């Protein structure tokens, strides 16, 4: 019942292109916890937070909850800037971020007990199901400390490196962060990267060791790890159990005491940092922002400095966590604007909002264009769905400025789109949303990275689509993106991970022990080797204990070739892949074997080949159907026979013709999946 379920779902593979330096900088994800805690919800405490006294755990009183509720009701009341605290939570997946966030909302009375649902901040079904935060949300809470009311703004961050740019923007909107570490798991790779990011943003970091109630908890050990690995002072760290409600008030108190208030800049021209935006079909884009300087009123004409678009603010409000309208927001506050904005591209995360008539001199730092790093082709199974797919992608793009797509045509798959994503999880989520929310049935080609091709005439072209790779005669060399990857693992699995990294053409760099039992491994390997099932492998080979983090370190030349698949001597473009020469044979063999299994036999013999250029490196043959005849039309009753023939004809319709060969969609899908695994 109380087991986490998000452990293996999402391969965290992406990186972040630094705007300030040309080198690529490492970022990481904020993890999220996913605990099922239906059973003892009622027993959990509700802290009465009006007097700053620490209520006892398990001492739930009616008075307490009423007081908390009243305090929650007052949360729209303005407080001076000096009493605003903006913070976020940094945690690894399953270390309890969402549980803690839920608890904070409950204890401060922001969310009534009866409205409480798990992971309140995760709005999308997909998020709640997968237990990961994809889009950020924010929550304004009122907390009374030593008889003084404070306004706390929790800015939730997405739990995945794919969204590290968004993480960095939401961190930039805060003055402090809670670093939540699981008392039995210790510091994980992505946590590390996000803490560095927070430190870069000069955030005050409050270490919190969570899940101290669990039997395997070793808080002392974990604290030592935080001190040694991150170098944070842990003397004032808080031990808590979000699930049991232990230590929640200490956390709230520490937020008030230790996180600095926003600077007093309400008199300056209005500047606000967008840390999230989403598209609402009825109201247009809703922008979440933190006011950095000045103030904004309902009805103001506002300007988005990066996109250059201007709008009238129809509605402004705060998130608590539902949208509640207010008339005015001033420096330090967090809120939303609705201004009939047509697309999130006009109000991108990281952009600066200013007042149209009293423009700020400069925009806030840190804005950058999204750079897709992983590409794949998306094709509708049913060609009729092509316009629907385009509409759906356009709608998703309204809400996801990082999603890039352009039309692509393929002989086998028909019309579709080549889409660019921040990383693999981003890709998976987009695919799943397309299928789930827009009822599309899609075929995805194997994800590929962007290759840099040096042609013989001295040009350099970027190529993300294997079928567009210049002919061997025209290219001088091919470079592929490399990543530096850091793996944190219990020492028992070092061997298994080294083997995995070696398999994936990894180059060993360094190994060090970060604690007695845990080691950090450093490798450099091609990004292409990671966009497959690397993360799944990492998890399965270490029983889920290892974590990883990576960053792109640039392009390197590799002996890469294009592997083609020929069915009945016809090239099947969507199955072409770019692989390292050393792997071509095993990949070719696996693909041809799989296709032989999946393609139904035809009326003639069908050779299935894997080729490099014109050289066949693996070959299978599908034997011909010998007999398919219904011998008798009994007593003139042809209806049954006709039904069978119609079914057979319908079956053919679902197939794609590769030359004379009918290939079922499932064959493509299975092979593309296999490509993801073997590449």
């Amino acid at each position: 019942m109380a087991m986490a379920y998000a452990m293996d779902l999402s391969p965290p593979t992406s990186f972040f292109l630094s705007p300030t330096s040309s080198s690529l900088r490492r970022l990481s994800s904020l993890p999220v916890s996913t605990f099922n805690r239906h059973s003892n919800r009622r027993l959990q405490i509700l802290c009465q937070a009006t007097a700053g006294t620490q209520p006892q755990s398990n001492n739930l009183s009616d008075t307490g909850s009423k007081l908390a509720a009243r305090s929650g009701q007052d949360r729209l009341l303005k407080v001076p800037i000096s009493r605003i605290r903006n913070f976020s939570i940094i945690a690894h997946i399953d270390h309890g971020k969402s549980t803690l966030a839920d608890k904070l909302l409950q204890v401060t009375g922001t969310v009534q007990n009866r409205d409480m649902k798990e992971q309140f901040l995760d709005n999308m079904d997909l998020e709640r199901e997968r237990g990961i935060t994809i889009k950020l949300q924010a929550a304004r809470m009122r907390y009374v400390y030593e008889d003084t009311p404070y306004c706390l703004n929790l800015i939730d961050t997405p739990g995945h490196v794919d969204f590290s740019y968004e993480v960095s923007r939401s961190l930039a909107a805060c003055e402090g962060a809670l670093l939540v570490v699981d008392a039995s798991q210790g510091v994980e790779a992505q946590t590390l990267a996000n803490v560095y990011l927070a430190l870069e943003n000069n955030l005050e970091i409050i270490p919190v060791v969570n899940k101290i109630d669990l039997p395997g908890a070793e808080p002392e050990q974990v604290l030592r790890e935080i001190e040694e690995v991150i170098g944070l002072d842990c003397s004032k760290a808080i031990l808590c159990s979000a699930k049991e409600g232990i230590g929640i008030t200490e956390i709230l108190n520490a937020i008030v005491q230790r996180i600095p208030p926003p600077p007093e800049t309400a008199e300056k021209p209005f500047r606000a940092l967008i840390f999230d935006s989403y598209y609402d079909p009825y109201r247009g884009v809703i922008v979440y922002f933190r006011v950095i300087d000045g103030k904004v009123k309902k009805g103001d004409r506002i300007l988005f400095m990066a996109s250059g678009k201007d709008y009238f603010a129809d509605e402004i409000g705060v998130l608590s966590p539902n949208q509640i309208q207010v008339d005015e927001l001033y420096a330090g506050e967090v809120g939303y604007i609705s201004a009939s904005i047509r697309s999130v591209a006009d109000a991108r995360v990281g952009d600066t909002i200013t007042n149209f008539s009293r423009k700020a001199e400069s925009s806030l730092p840190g804005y950058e264009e999204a750079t897709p790093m992983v590409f794949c082709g998306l094709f509708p199974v049913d060609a009729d769905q092509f316009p629907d797919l385009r509409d759906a992608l356009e709608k998703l793009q309204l809400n996801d400025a990082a999603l890039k797509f352009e039309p692509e045509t393929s002989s086998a798959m028909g019309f579709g789109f080549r889409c660019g994503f921040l990383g693999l999880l981003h890709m998976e989520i987009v695919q799943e949303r397309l299928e789930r929310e827009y009822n599309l049935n899609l075929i995805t080609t194997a994800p590929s990275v962007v290759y840099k091709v040096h042609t013989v005439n001295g040009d350099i072209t970027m190529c993300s689509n294997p079928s567009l790779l210049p002919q061997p005669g025209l290219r001088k060399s091919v470079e592929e993106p490399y990543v530096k990857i850091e793996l944190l693992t219990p020492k028992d699995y070092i061997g298994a991970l080294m083997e995995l990294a070696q398999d994936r053409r990894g180059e060993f760099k360094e190994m060090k022990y970060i604690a007695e039992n845990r080691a950090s491994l450093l490798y450099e390997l091609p990004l292409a080797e990671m966009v497959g099932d690397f993360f799944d492998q990492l998890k399965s080979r270490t029983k889920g204990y290892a974590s990883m983090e990576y960053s792109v370190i640039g392009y390197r030349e590799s002996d890469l070739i294009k592997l083609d698949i020929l069915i009945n001597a016809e090239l099947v473009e969507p199955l072409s892949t770019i692989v390292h020469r050393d792997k071509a044979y095993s990949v070719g063999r696996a693909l041809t074997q799989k296709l032989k299994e999946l393609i139904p036999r035809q009326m003639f013999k069908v050779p299935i080949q894997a080729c490099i250029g014109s050289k066949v490196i693996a070959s299978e043959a599908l034997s011909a159907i010998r007999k398919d005849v219904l011998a008798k039309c009994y007593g003139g009753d042809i209806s049954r026979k006709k039904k069978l023939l119609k079914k057979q004809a319908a079956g053919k319709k679902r197939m794609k013709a590769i030359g004379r060969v009918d290939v079922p969609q499932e064959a493509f899908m299975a092979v593309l999946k296999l490509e993801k695994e073997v590449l």
Partner: protein
Amino acid sequence: MLRTTTSPIFSSFTSKPRTSRLIFKAFNVILEDTPPSARRNASTNLTTLHQGPPTSAYVHLPFCRKRCHYCDFPILALGSSVSNAPYEEKQEDDPRITNYVNLLVREINATRTCFDTNPNLKTVFFGGGTPSLVPPKLVSLVLETLSSRFGLCPDAEISMEMDPGTFGGEKLKELMDLGVNRVSLGVQAFQEELLKACGRAHGVTEVYEAIEIVRACGVENWSMDLISSLPHQTLEMWEESLRLAIESQPSHVSVYDLQVEQGTKFGNVYTPGKSPLPSETQSAEFYKTASSMLRGAGYEHYEVSSYSKDEGFKCKHNLIYWGNKPFYAFGLGSASYVGGLRFSRPRRLKEYTNYVADLENGAANWCGDGNVDLKDVATDIIMLSFRTSKGLEVKEFGEAFGRKVVNSICKVYEPYVESGHIVCLDDMRREVMSDEFKKLVGDDEVKIEDHVRYLRLRDPDGFLLSNELISLAFGVISP
């Protein structure tokens, strides 16, 4: 009401609004395409064949001694008491048979049609079941009823399926006197173990006896039924059966490839292509062997599973089916095609009894109103005509359904003409070679039907893959 159709093809669209819209969409091109003369002559073309009065009747006599292991037909098993006394005509008193035949007679009598003309029946087919289990007296009753209801041509082909061990010379003579002039003898195999394995109620001895009786009685037109791909059947056994069949000199041979049907005993224990059933390759070999041995012995392979000694011994009744022409059907589970409606009667006796009562009250809807879905007719014609060695008449088909459909079918078949699965023939039934066919298909200026008169499946390679090939044409008609 059946309309005489001189009006355009629209009138034959089905009355269901949704379907008819779809059909119209698919066929509107065709209508523009059809030359006016063809439309005026619509009453004679393929799309209106079904509107005429039937001249054939199928009569289902469902009685068997026991159910064979491969059989999923509507039958009524009489039990072993009958099988113990095959030649004594005890069955005459079996009330189950008498009652059924009475019901059948009621059905025939209650069958009212409203055709302008009522031509006499040219073929009657007693199928089963094992019709030879029915006493001649009752067969006579059925024939009399048919005759008084519809009229019977003096030279009508009257076929009856007969199983070894269910009739003697006397009975056969009686039946012949009644007008039965074609016997379809259910031999199935010449190996005791195979007959046993498929649960036949007779052995090899009865097979030889039955052949002897048929020949002694002087039945000129008789067919022997054989089944290939039976469990445990080897190529040697199959060759032996074919050889013995040829030696018996039937005027017609039907060779059925075993279909493993769901719900039958075979369906429960066997998987097609898996031992003890022959593999797909073996099974294909059996088919080819039958084709070459029977043709070698002078039989014409005129339909996927039918061989005849000469033109006159082709089964006229079955040719009605394959020509997509209308026919009556009477009896349990039987399927008729009248007024454009393919109608199957209830397969269970109780429901069938109710059906007959409804029919008598005028409440049964077994006859179509002449309106058909053109696509349905087109696919019926495709699947039926490709079963025959005559094949699809391209020109007629094009006149009825449009040249574009013919062009598309030719395009789809082009690779299979090249691979030899499909044969193209000109007016004189000379083969059009694949290079030439390719040129014709590639040239939009050329009217294919001026050069290609027939398309047919090649024997045996094309016949063996008939389902695949026919479903390709289906795909053209209902894209």
